[in-house]
């Protein structure tokens, strides 16, 4: 998504900033309100991310493995919901959310940090030993992310395109269960990615509902179908059971819905007149 960001940056440079440039032309005017609302949504999530990460990293530093494990998945959800925006800062995205196979030396790589490095320690090594430095760095990164996002003017096509981006995320790394490979908490991320995509779609839906009734009916149906599958995997505490319990049939159903949502949501930008 860096591509969108830079392209938009170029456009903004050319026009003297998106607020007066890209946003001034019709039909972007209609986007002002949904964009403002989305910005609020993201701000709420980054605030929550800072709060939850503080509790999570405190537990890690206190050596409380069980507590840290129980906070891992719920803490990540606020990050996963806003990933299209969070990803704009690729340096932070790497240090917060990279996976071991992004590195040549995998888990042993000195650059492997963030949530998944801590996840590796907690689940694979069953200990918080040596994790304090990663905890400190994660918290600092998350606070930095919060500050940067608060100062950001949201590029419209990044927000609108974000719904599809979240589906691409699920299709590329979540369906296969690669994301949270040590904790098997992938379904939490799944759910958060869907929620983030649905939020964007819901905010924009009124702008297209009249002209694109077939489209919205299909997208609504696919979101509902995903919810229905995920509901089956809710745990008693409101979270999700292990990824391993996902049946092949349900994985296929999710995969088909995710790819179809990705296809359809990828047309949102065009439908709203954004190139």
């Amino acid at each position, binding site marked *: 998504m860096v591509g969108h960001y830079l392209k938009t940056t170029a456009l903004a440079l050319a026009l003297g900033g998106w607020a007066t440039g890209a946003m001034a032309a019709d039909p972007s005017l209609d986007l002002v309100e949904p964009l403002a609302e989305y910005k609020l949504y993201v701000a709420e999530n980054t605030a929550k991310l800072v709060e939850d990460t503080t509790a999570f990293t405190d537990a890690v530093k206190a050596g409380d493995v069980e507590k840290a494990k129980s906070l891992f998945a719920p803490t990540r959800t606020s990050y996963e919901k806003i990933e299209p925006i969070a990803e704009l800062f690729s340096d932070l995205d*790497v240090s917060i959310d990279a996976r071991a196979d992004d590195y040549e030396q995998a888990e042993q790589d000195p650059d492997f940090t963030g949530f998944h490095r801590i996840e590796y320690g907690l689940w694979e090594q069953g200990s918080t030993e040596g994790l304090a430095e990663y905890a400190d760095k994660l918290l600092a990164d998350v606070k930095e992310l919060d500050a940067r996002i608060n100062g950001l003017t949201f590029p419209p096509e990044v927000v609108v395109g974000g719904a599809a981006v979240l589906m691409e995320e699920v299709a590329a790394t979540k369906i296969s269960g690669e994301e949270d490979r040590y904790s098997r908490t992938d379904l939490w991320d799944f759910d958060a990615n869907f929620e983030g995509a649905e939020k964007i779609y819901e905010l924009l839906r009124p702008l297209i509902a009249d002209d694109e009734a077939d489209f919205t009916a299909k997208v609504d149906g696919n979101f509902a179908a995903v919810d229905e599958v995920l509901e089956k995997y809710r745990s008693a505490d409101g979270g999700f059971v292990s990824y391993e319990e996902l049946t092949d049939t349900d994985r*296929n159903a999710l995969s088909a819905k995710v790819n179809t949502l990705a*296809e359809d949501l990828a047309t949102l930008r*065009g439908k709203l007149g954004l190139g």
Partner: protein
Amino acid sequence: MNDQGRLSTTRRTLLRQIGLGALGGTIAGSIGIHARAQDAKTAPQVVDAPPGHAETAAQHVPFHGRHQAGILTPRPASGIFAAFDVVVASLDDFERMLRLLTERAAFLTQGGEVPARDPKLPPADSGLLGPVIAPDNLTITLGLGASLFDRHDWLAGLKPARLQRMVQFPNDALDPALCHGDLSLQFCANLPDTNIHALRDIVKNLSEFLVLRWMIEGSVPPVPPAPDGSTPSARNFLGFRDGSANPDANDAALMERVVWTHGPDEPEWAHGGSYQAVRVIRNFVERWDRAPLAEQERIFGRTKMTGAPLDAPRASEYDVPDYAADPDGATTPPDSHIRLANPRTPKSERNLMLRRPFNYSRGVLRNGQLDQGLLFIAYQADLEAGFIAVQNQLNGEPLEEYIKPVGGGYFFALPGAAVGDYLGASLVNAARRS
């Protein structure tokens, strides 16, 4: 997740686009200086597209007919076999899927212009073949697996009588990531790009229904034709001609018996379809290349260069061995591949099948050996009398030292679709009646 490498590339592209910075300036400048003039006819450049052949690009195989194309159709140089899981909640969904699949396959195999779309939207087509799709001999053959019938009550009682889940044979080492599936698509074309384009079209347009499970790409080496236009059987990766003793696909009566499913114990809707047995069979090529030629020929029962039977080494590959004259197997060993696969007795007549394989090459294994083999595809009227019986005869053959089946599955290739109809219509109609 983004990697940082992409960021810098994107940034460079951006700089170039908006003409900022020394880097951007240099690139823009160099384009002006070095790009060759478009009007002058110059000597070929390194990245010019290799010249294609208008004649082969225009070749097309009719899509509609009593049987599906891609079974008796002469096999072109490139193939892809892809197995999918199917997501359908109802018979109506299933029909929608079949209609859409038929529409895409009919378009792709006959070729035509890609529809233009508002550039603000993702393009309708991947574009990898340009604005006009050449048919390029493409066939797309649709099969269904037992799992699809077993999972949906609305298909209850309609499964072809011999359709079943492939089970492990003694020499197999099956990789679950290369086995089975609800639905199969066999793509065959002159060029691999034509198959890849078609596969991507279907993956994109049928995302709602199809989840790709596994796939293998294959090829066979083309041979310059003889003056009469004929070519010999293509060679497999063990260097032998493969297909010499195949039943004659131009003999319609023989095909009715050997290939097309018929018979009172098969559901009516399935008549005119065919059982598709697919096996991904690794070849231990390094080891094979270290085996003496005479042993290689004894293992198959044919000579390596010409394909002639061992009892008539000067004959052609199309000559058949006379086992009656060699009852002890002094010339053609009793455990040679061809003698086990087809002992040529009146009884073995019912075990015939039509083989239509491709070779595959998939990189390197952890042990540093080449991952190459045979994408075995065979069609038969009766899966049990055909592939399963013959594989059981082959179990324990000396060739096993050099091969390892690692994947595959059994599917039922549907009967063909008449013009205006869709593939699988006879099955859907039967399901509506029951």
